[in-house]
């Protein structure tokens, strides 16, 4: 895998975004160009996959000095797990952009430019091998998100978006402090060159930033509003892709670069993750609307992924990566479906929905399939991920696995509640005959996503044994991916 592919994956959407903003495209072109570019990204990623050697370390590497006195550079490349996350990003972005194109958005040039900008920033984040570059992409994501939610969001968007950005900024700024302290101590900001740090404070700086971004309990104050008010495809990316940035950061930086602190703080973090898992599940159970359930379930899932990451063994790491990819796809699909439902009924309130399965087989099938996989029915990809995570964390103490297993029962409760409140029972007052089944375009967007999930259900090892070089997760982490 050539380094230019990595760079192209990052900068193709960014450049297209600039072009969209700068040139006076005809109204209908913006969406088409954006969708096309998003698909090209997917193609590029797929084409690069066969050339990726999953038994080796960093690939698709490119390095260019940025400023040498602090030893920062434009250094990008992919590991096994990051290539999957990048894949998740391009796939989910393509779906989101195509969905927006189909649904139609006001001021398309601005809108699609921002979406592409977001995509580029996230891919860059997963590829960055330099802390300053990583941070730059981490923060750059916020710009499009702020505007996308603030301009195209729902009625409560102002509060939602402001809370979201300020909260995440506050977290990530702590990380900036941590990065600088770490980078100056190591005399380089390069993730490959630098050694391990031993300062617990620096570690916590990173952890809090990622915990806010993910979010982990109790740093999720921004989550419900943001997920509810954003346009559905933006919520999809938020929960599907961007939340993974937090988990990725924990894996790539916090755990890898601070092995001692990670060990010292293992139990508190496991506690937070477990509490988040249960808490998110319980709140999802009482959420009154579709997006509320998905939002809180996302909180729970990120807690689960964190459990896996801090299990500290192969199963935990592999499972976490697998679960990141699977939850990303599922969450994207669910939010797009929620968007479809809201489009038809102009509400997501359970009290007003119901009975949508009748006469809408495609909607019912897709929502049912996605929901059932999302509640981790055994045999599904999500089950595989959760199984590995809990298997891994069992080694840290059976109680974690027991809590996790209990939370999965709760997951079944809230997800079935969602499914039946939307699809089953009596027809809700907001559901009219004008609410049609999914259109072919929507199917064209959603079916590939679901197909990916089902394919992963048939072969989860595709990711789980290809997440780390030679499927030696612990070894790779101990070697700091060098």
């Amino acid at each position: 895998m050539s380094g230019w592919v990595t760079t192209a994956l990052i900068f193709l959407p960014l450049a297209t975004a600039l072009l969209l903003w700068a040139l006076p495209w005809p109204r209908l072109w913006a969406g088409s160009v954006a969708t096309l570019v998003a698909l090209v990204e997917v193609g590029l990623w797929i084409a690069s996959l066969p050339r990726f050697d999953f038994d080796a370390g960093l690939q698709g590497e490119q390095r260019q000095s940025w400023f040498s006195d602090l030893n920062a550079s434009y250094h990008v490349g992919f590991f096994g797990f990051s290539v999957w996350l990048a894949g998740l990003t391009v796939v989910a972005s393509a779906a989101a952009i195509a969905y927006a194109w189909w649904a139609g958005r006001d001021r398309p040039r601005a809108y699609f430019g921002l979406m592409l900008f977001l995509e580029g920033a996230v891919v860059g984040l997963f590829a960055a091998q330099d802390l300053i570059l990583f941070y730059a992409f981490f923060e750059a994501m916020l710009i499009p998100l702020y505007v996308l939610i603030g301009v195209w969001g729902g009625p409560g968007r102002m509060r939602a978006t402001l809370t979201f950005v300020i909260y995440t900024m506050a977290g990530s700024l702590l990380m900036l402090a941590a990065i600088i302290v770490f980078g100056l101590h190591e005399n380089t900001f390069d993730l490959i060159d630098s050694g391990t740090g031993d300062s617990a404070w620096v570690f916590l700086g990173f952890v809090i930033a990622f915990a806010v971004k993910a979010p982990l309990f109790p740093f999720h104050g921004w989550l419900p509003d943001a997920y509810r008010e954003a346009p559905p495809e933006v919520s999809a990316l938020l929960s599907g892709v961007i939340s993974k940035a937090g988990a990725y950061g924990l894996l790539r930086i916090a755990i890898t670069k601070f092995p001692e602190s990670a060990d010292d703080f293992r139990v508190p973090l496991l506690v937070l993750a477990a509490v988040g898992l249960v808490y998110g599940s319980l709140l999802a159970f009482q959420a009154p609307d579709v997006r509320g359930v998905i939002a809180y379930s996302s909180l729970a899932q990120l807690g689960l992924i964190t459990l896996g990451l801090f299990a500290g063994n192969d199963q935990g790491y592999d499972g976490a990566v697998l679960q990141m990819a699977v939850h990303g796809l599922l969450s994207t699909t669910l939010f797009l479906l929620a968007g479809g439902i809201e489009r038809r009924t102009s509400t997501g309130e359970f009290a007003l929905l119901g009975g949508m399965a009748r006469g809408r087989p495609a909607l019912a099938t897709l929502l049912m399939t996605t929901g059932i996989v999302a509640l981790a029915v055994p045999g599904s990809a999500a089950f595989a991920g959760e199984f590995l995570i809990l298997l891994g964390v069992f080694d840290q103490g059976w109680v974690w696995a027991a809590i996790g297993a209990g939370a999965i029962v709760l997951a079944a409760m809230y997800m079935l509640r969602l499914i039946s409140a939307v699809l089953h029972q009596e027809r809700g007052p907001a559901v009219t005959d004008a609410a049609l089944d999914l259109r072919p375009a929507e199917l064209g967007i959603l079916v590939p996503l679901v197909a990916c999930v089902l394919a992963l259900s048939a072969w989860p090892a595709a990711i789980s044994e290809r997440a780390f070089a030679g499927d030696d997760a612990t070894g790779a982490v101990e070697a700091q991916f060098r």
Partner: protein
Amino acid sequence: MILGALISIPTPEVDWVGLSPPLVPLGAAGLALLGSVFAPQGARRALAAVVIALGFVAMLGFSAYVYWKSPDAQGLVADAARRDRLAALAQLIIAGAALLTVGIAWSDRPKQEHVGEYYVLLATAASGMAFMVSASNLMTLFLGLEWFSLSLYVLCAIDIELPTSLESGLKYLIVGSFGSAVLLFGFALVFGATGGGLQLADIAERAGGDLKSDPMLLVGLAMILTGLGFKSSAAPFHMWTPDVYQGSPTPVTAFMSAATKVVALVVTLRVLVTAFPAQEDFWTAAIAAIAVASLAIGNLGALVQRNVKRLLAYSSISHAGFMLIPIAAANSLGGRALLYYLIPYGAASLGAFAVVAARERELGAPVTLDNLAGMGWERPFLGFSLALFAFAFIGLPPGGLFLGKVYAFSAAVDRGWTWLVIVGVVATAVSVYYYLAIIRSLYMRAEAELQLAPAGGSPPRDIALSASVGASLAVVFASFVFVQPLIDLAEKAAGSLAF
């Protein structure tokens, strides 16, 4: 005998090239002054603007040349000033800021009186600044300060038919003179305490040893910090800033926010590092405290502002705080950080005020967050630019200010003052709120709240202003990408000082 002595006085050699950065705009000012007196009324604006702009272009060229040709610092005119890369780089930034200001000011007062003098004063201010950054003794420092300050006092009040302009001018004048007087008394005390003349280098030579913690010297130092802190609008010496920034003509505000900061901070760095290395413990702590105060007051004060100029004024206070962090670090990384930071900061500040100026002209009313509404959609270029400047001010990539903060914080960490970084980080988090408020106004208001341009449609396109905004944007973002060349520049410039 007296006559004979007079004839025999050996006048010092004058290095005209070294002096060129302040002299060139001064010459242009002279030409423009003549023009604005003798040229016909209708041509005065164009004539003055073009002459002054050319002067600034030449100043850019000369300061670049001086930078290039001055790897080793040397004295100018009997060591009254220094010809070194620190000064040259600062002059370069000042020249750029002044040039962009001409573009911003072009449409400001087409039919007003004294339009020629307006540009003239801009040029004298710029040349005074250019001089002050190179000044190397207490007297030239003081004179340089007064030189550009007086120009600015007049510029602030130049809209004499506006009460607010006069108010801001008078406030600036009185508090400014007060600050100058304090600075002067501080100079006097330092002069008295060290007894070695006025040269900064000589002061350093004598201020060590048993004078290290001499009370008179320290009180003098406190007064100098106060006077310089006043100019860089650092808290608690900042209080003139919001009023003056708000009341002054917007292009003047733009110029002040960018260029005055450069001068004040570079001079602060030069004076402290050159003259008071022995008192480092004192002034680093003081500067750190001032930085913290500025960060706190600037950011908290900005939270509740509605007037955009005032908001940006508070933001400039907070950025003064950020830029004082590397000075407090007192290391060569700090020098680099400060000089790097100034470049994107100056550009962003100029650009933001430029957009405000454009909006102000369009609306014929002061720009508030409310009447900014919808500008992003109606004036795509200007609105987009203002949004980007706001993002850059927050320190979000890809604005150069992000790396400015990284460098500033690195300098503090390098000194071991991580707590200062934490303060900076918290301040940034607070600042997010009001910068986002600008963007919210630009793009996120409901249609009903949009403030459309007044009847008569959109004003004629102001190409000069747009060009200035575009140039500012380019600087802000290019400084993010091309860090190495800028850092090299800054490193060599900081090398002029003995850290």
